[in-house]
């Protein structure tokens, strides 16, 4: 699992790649939240290179989304692969987290 991020204004785009499973989900949450600055209002999680996510990964994603929601900030995801999108849909996560086809679409919100 790897992270990179880029920031423009109050928007932070985090690119996550690799696998998020039961063995590294808590590291995933720490790494993700470690990229946040207090000034970030919108977090866009780019999952184009995320190969695998299990319920342990969904669990930490939900924790991050709820933490941001409490601070009246938003988390959206974009560019999911077919396989990750399948898991998202079955878990009903597409009902609680905004999903966009690309980073550009997510930025336009």
């Amino acid at each position, binding site marked *: 699992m790897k992270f990179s991020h880029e920031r423009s204004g109050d928007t932070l785009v985090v690119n996550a790649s690799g696998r998020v499973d039961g063995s590294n989900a808590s590291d995933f949450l720490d790494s993700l939240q470690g990229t946040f600055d207090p000034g970030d209002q919108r977090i866009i999680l780019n999952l184009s290179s995320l190969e695998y996510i299990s319920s342990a990964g969904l669990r930490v994603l*939900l924790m991050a989304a709820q933490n941001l929601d409490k601070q009246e900030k938003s988390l959206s995801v974009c560019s999911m692969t077919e*396989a990750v999108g399948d898991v998202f849909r079955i878990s009903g996560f597409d009902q609680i987290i905004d999903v966009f086809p690309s980073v550009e679409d997510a930025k336009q919100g």
Partner: protein
Amino acid sequence: MRRLLHLPHSTQHSQTSDVLPLIENVLNEMAEADDWPVTLTMRANLILEELMLNTLTHGDTSGLTEINLDLESESHALTIHVTDDGSPFNPLTDAPEPDLTLPLSERPIGGLGVYLVRTMGEEIEYRREDNRNHLKLVVRPES
């Protein structure tokens, strides 16, 4: 293609961090050999991870000494047969159904794993026999 995996368990061994890469490797091998669609590889990984996490980390694991996996792939369908000598657990009945209509702020953290197994798995059969859990299910790609 068929693969059998024997996973002995003791307090020192077969932690989830050891078991998950092992399963990932076997599934990748099967996926390549039988040309699985990506959603089948994903679903198979996810279901096996949830089942292993359940058996290895939930409930009373003191009596658990082994998990056996029998994986058989045919025409883009994977049949999984898991047996273990851990405490009784029937994924069809022993976990509550999550409420997927709740808004973000009210969604409980966790409780999705067994639901994903029930939703992604087909023809699920469970029985407790000879002090073992026997679980059989079929995984297919997204329909």
